[in-house]
Structure formats: structure tokens, C-alpha cells
């Protein structure tokens, strides 16, 4: 046994393993520097679950900042436009307990509407809009681009003449929702055939 022992063997093994360690360490280090992710992936995921109304009802200036705050440990129940569904989705993803919504849930999908005859062209609503959905210029009438409006309410408060209404959004005919009626067609049809 002892004659097969040689310092050379031990040293070469130590040397090879150290070399491998250094090489792969360097490779990993370089890779982490080279392919460094700029963003926190969790924040991205949280942001994707938020409704992106950018309404600020959570107390943060937009959905992304709230996503960052949630990542830092803030409560997940501060998003009224998202409602129950968003809270449940967030709770599910983050492994936290779902809590009841802090605030009033949005009753329906709304869109801002400027009563154009009354608009004085102060541009205050334009500055308040988080998604640039209002067009107009100083002393010119303003109007809302309906498709871009998220219904966040942020333009209502700054208006000095109160000419902005939040109206229910019109739905295209193609976006129907099934009605469950007592006359169930397919079943009745089939049962008779």
C-alpha cells in the first residue's frame, strides 16, 4: 500500500482540481458579468400581473413602482382596478396570504370623456395623464383618445372647470360574454335527436 503512495500523485490531483476550480470560477465570473440581468426578474413578473392602469391608487406613481414596492415587502392588496383576481394571482406567485382589498373595487371599466364645449384648454389634464391619452394644446380644446385611456381617474381632479366625466366604456359587438339561459340550446337539441 505504502509503496504506491507518492507525493507527486497528491500534488497533481490537488493541482488539477485547483486549476479546474480557478478556470470554472473565472468562467462563471465572466459569464455573470457578461450576461448580467439588469432588472430584477421578480419585479417584472409582479408588474405583469398588475392591470397597468397607472392610476396611482396604491400610493405609488404607477404600476411599476408598486411592483418594486411589493418586491420590497409592501402589501399586495392595494390595487383597486385589479381587484380580487390580481390579489389572488399575486398571493399565488409570491406565496403570501391573500388579504381583502384595501379600498373600493372598481365597479366597471370606464373611460374619461371631456365635455369639449366646456374645456378651457388649461393642459392640466394632459400633464396628469400617465399614458399620454389626452391630446390638445394651451388654450385649445382637449380630447381623450378612447383606445389609449386606461380609465385611471387621474385627469378628473386637476380639471379646474370639472368638464371631465368617467363614462362606462363601450364594448364592441364581438366581445360578447355568454349568457346562461334556462333554454339551453345544445342540450335540448341533442336530447331530442
Amino acid at each position, binding site marked *: 500500500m505504502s509503496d504506491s503512495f507518492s507525493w507527486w500523485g497528491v500534488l497533481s490531483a490537488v493541482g488539477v482540481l485547483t486549476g479546474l476550480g480557478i478556470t470554472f470560477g473565472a468562467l462563471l465570473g465572466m459569464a455573470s458579468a457578461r450576461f448580467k440581468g439588469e432588472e430584477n426578474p421578480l419585479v417584472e413578473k409582479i408588474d405583469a400581473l398588475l392591470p397597468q392602469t397607472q392610476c396611482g391608487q396604491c400610493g405609488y406613481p404607477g404600476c411599476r413602482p408598486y411592483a418594486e414596492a411589493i418586491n420590497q415587502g409592501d402589501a399586495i392588496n392595494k390595487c383597486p382596478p385589479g381587484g380580487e383576481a390580481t390579489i389572488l394571482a399575486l398571493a399565488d406567485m409570491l406565496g403570501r396570504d391573500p388579504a381583502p382589498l384595501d379600498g373600493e373595487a372598481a365597479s366597471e371599466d370606464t373611460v374619461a370623456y371631456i365635455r369639449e364645449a366646456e374645456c378651457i384648454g388649461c393642459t392640466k389634464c394632459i400633464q396628469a395623464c400617465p399614458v399620454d391619452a389626452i391630446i390638445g394644446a394651451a388654450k385649445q380644446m382637449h380630447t381623450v383618445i378612447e383606445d389609449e385611456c386606461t380609465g385611471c381617474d387621474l385627469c378628473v381632479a386637476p380639471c379646474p372647470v370639472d368638464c371631465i366625466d368617467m363614462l362606462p366604456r363601450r364594448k364592441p359587438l364581438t366581445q360578447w360574454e355568454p349568457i346562461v339561459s334556462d333554454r339551453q340550446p345544445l342540450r335540448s337539441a341533442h*336530447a331530442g335527436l
Partner: protein
Amino acid sequence: MPAYDFPGGIYPPERKERSNQAPLRTAPLPSEVTLPMSQHTGKAALPCVNVGDAVKTGTLVARRDGMVSANVHASISGTVIEINDSVIIIQGDGEDRWATLPPLDWRTAERDTLLERLDDSGLIGLGGAGFPTYIKAQVNEHHAIDTLVVNAAECEPYITADDLTLRHYAADVLEGAQLLARLCGAAHIIVGVEDNKPEAIQALQALLTVSADSEPLASVTLKIIETRYPSGGERQLIKKLLNREVPSGGLPADIGVLCHNPGTLLAALHAVRDGQPLVARVVTLTGDAIIQPGNYWVRVGTSVDALLEHVGVAHERLHQVVVGGPMMGTPLTSLEIPVTKTTNCLIAATKEELPPAPAEAPCIRCGACESVCPAQLLPQQLHWYARAENDAALEAHHLFDCIECGACSYVCPSAIPLVQDYRSSKQRIRHKRIETAKAEHAKHRFEFRQSRLAREEAEKKARRQARLAQQQSASSDATGTQTAPVADLRSLRIAQTAAKAAVRKAEKVLARAAAQDPQQRHDDLETQLATAQENLKAAEARLAEARAASEQKEAP
């Protein structure tokens, strides 16, 4: 019989003899028509007439909006009395004066002229889906088409509209098929007919033996298939006739096939040869509560109520009116609705004929639904997931490959309305997709605004700094200690390089998307590019500011 076949299928009672005995008749001219703007797949048409305008039969009253959409024409002559978001109502003058387009010869006319004619005539698939025909006719610009299938299987019980169309207009249907085969470059035409339509088959066979010596542009084959529901499904028929399988989420064009309904082919020929826009179609009026069942030429926009009155309805026995067949159709909650381009059948059913369903019982996992599914899905699994609203699992189980044929609910011993569940799940998932896309769009716009504000702020600061530096060098007042702390130049330069890279990346992504799909608009990608550009400008402004500050510091 060909050796190939599609899986599943059922044999429901056909009940076609009620409506296929009488010859094709013409329904009386309605006194008023209601023309919906959305009778087709895609965007609703936009009205192009005003209230009070006099129109003739065939006058264009609504123009298509965008690519996937179709024109709508007045189906009677008279006056426009109402226009709102979804319909145009025309009061008839009873004279039926026509406004036709100049006739064309499809053999000699330019391809573009023919396509334009199909488009102008508001032609859509009359089989049910209502896809604009002019788009389908130019599909060979993206896919090589070798076979045109005439889908005359008409597998759904009760309906005999295609059967009667073929009996009366077999030659015209085949000519229409030649026309569309020419447009899409198909060399073969296959007519698929179920064996329960002997008269239609006879008419076609007589024609094929005659026209063998004349020079047909595309070879025509007649294939008679076994009667089994749903062999008239596009995918099922292609599998049966050609043994080719349409890929999941794909179209028949992906495998070189195009399917057309006989009614569509006839309408295409009328549009080209006679210059008649699509204003009438063949509708099967059947059911036990109807006194004179049969097939009728009906003007589009005729109210269902008026039509049923014309053929006579035994009101005391009428239980419900179903539009479409009993398998895939929907019952009407009101008869005050118009016949559209896609209404192929109206069933006025008695209670004995289509009795109310028994109460739904729990699923017993018998697996009957699975063995009849023609799309080889797992209806039972889909049922559980649909009830649990587990959308991810539904999509993983290919819910969107369901053709909603209703075979599964037909065989279900627990009378579970499976297809209803699938339909509402599909709609819910589509709705969710729209919402997600909207949220994504709002997010990009928000990010763009944030970066624009940041850029404005940075530029303002940079200008102020530059001004300050100028003032100081002019007065050479060497008390530069209270100037803003000089930011780390190196990290700012890195930020600027990163911003530049981000702009390049956004440009590349946009260019790639534009190359892949030049017709699509890429608003979100453009917003992302603009955001990156704003970020770059902000980084440059910050760098300029820091440079000015550092120069100012060194200057004294």
C-alpha cells in the same frame, strides 16, 4: 370508399326528408330589411349611405373596414330609413329594381379584376363562418394551393340548403368552383358529398360525364362519403378526402387545400358572371311546427318572423326556433332578427321534436365523449378544467382545436352541456388575451412617458449647468466650491453606452417584426423604440451636464 377516415363522429337522426322533398322556392320580397354591419368574420362594415337615400337592390350601403371585413349591399330597392351602430334598415318600394355591376367572363378577365369583383360583391363563406371570400381567393400568395374542396357534405341534421343548391344549380356550382380554382391556382377540384343526397349526386355525375370532353381548367372529381356527423367539418372532410391533416392552430391552406361551400361558389359565379352582389341566399326552413317546410331563396335582411309567417307556423305547437342546425345552432330568444349571409337554416321545433334537456348529472367518467371527438381531444378533461376555469390547462389540452361540433354533448349520458362550457371558456380566454394586450400597451406608453419626462428633466439640468459654467468662466469668479457635486463620469458613460445598445436592440426587434409581418402595425414595438431613444437622450444630457460640471471645477 377511401381507406382514410377521421376519428370519432356520431350518427344522429338526419330528419332531412322534411325539407328536401319540395323544390327550391323563392320567398316573397320583404317590405323591410334590416342589414347588420357585422355578418362576417372580422371588423364590422362602415355605412356609406345616409338616412333618406334611395337605394336599388345591389347598391352598396356599407363599405368594408380594413382587410378582414366585407361590403354590405341593399337587398331590396327602396329608402334607407334608419342607420345605427350595428344595422341599416331599408324600407322597400316593392319594385325590386336592380343595380348590377358589369358582367365579367371569368375565363378571360384579369385575376385582379376578379378578386376586386369578389371583394366589391361582399362575398363571404356561406357555410357558417362567414370569412371574406376575396381574402381566401388570394391565399395562394402565401401558400401553394393544389386542391379546391367543394364541401357539400352537409352533415348536420335537418339542413338541406346545399343539397337543393346542387340539385338546381350543379353546373353553376362547378363553374364557380372552376373560377375560384383559377384564382387560387388549384389544379384539382374535389366535390365531397355524403351518400344521403342521391339527387344531388346524380346531378353532379350527369354533369361530369358531359363535361369530360370540354376542356376543364381543373380536373373535377366527385367523392361520395359515408354519412356521419361531422364529416362536413373542414378538417374532417379534408382528412377523409385527401388523408391530409390540418395542423393544430393552422389552416387548410397550410397543407395546400382550400374549402368552399357550394352556396359560396354559386354566389361567386353570380357576382362575376351576372354582376350580382350577395343579397340573397338559400335558407332551409324546417321543423315540425312549419306547415310548408322546404328551401327558399331569401333576401338577406328579411326578418325571421316574416319568413316564418310566409311558410306558415303552427304557433300553438312551436316551442323554439333554432338558427343553424340542431347540433351547432343557437336558439333564438327573439324572432325580430334578420336573416344574415350566414343563416343557412331555421328550425321551428315543437317540444316533442327538440324537448328540453334533462337535468345535468355529474360526470361518471365513462369516456363516451372521448371516443366520438373528431378532433381527438379529451372532452372530459376539458370539462373539469372549464368548470374550474383553469385556463392554462385548457390551452395545454388544445381547447382551441375544438370545432364545437357537439358530438360530445350528444353522447353524454349525464347530459352535461359540454360544448357550452367550451364556448364560454374560449370566450373568457380570448377576453383575457385582449385585456393582457391592452395592459401591455398601456405599460409601454407609461414607460415612454416616464422616460420622456426624465429626458426633459435631464436636458433642463444640463442647460442650466452649461449656463452656469459660461457665467463663471466669464466672470472668472473662482468660488466654484458650491457647484453641484460632479457625478461619476465613468458610470454615466456606461449608462450612455447601455442606452445606445438598448436603442439598437429595439431597432433590431422592430425591423425583424416588420420584415416578418409587413402588414401588421407594431405600435408597441415602436413605443419601445421611442422609449429607448428618450432614455439615450436623457443619458447624453446627463453626461453633458457632468462634463460641464467637471470642466467648471477644473477651470479655476
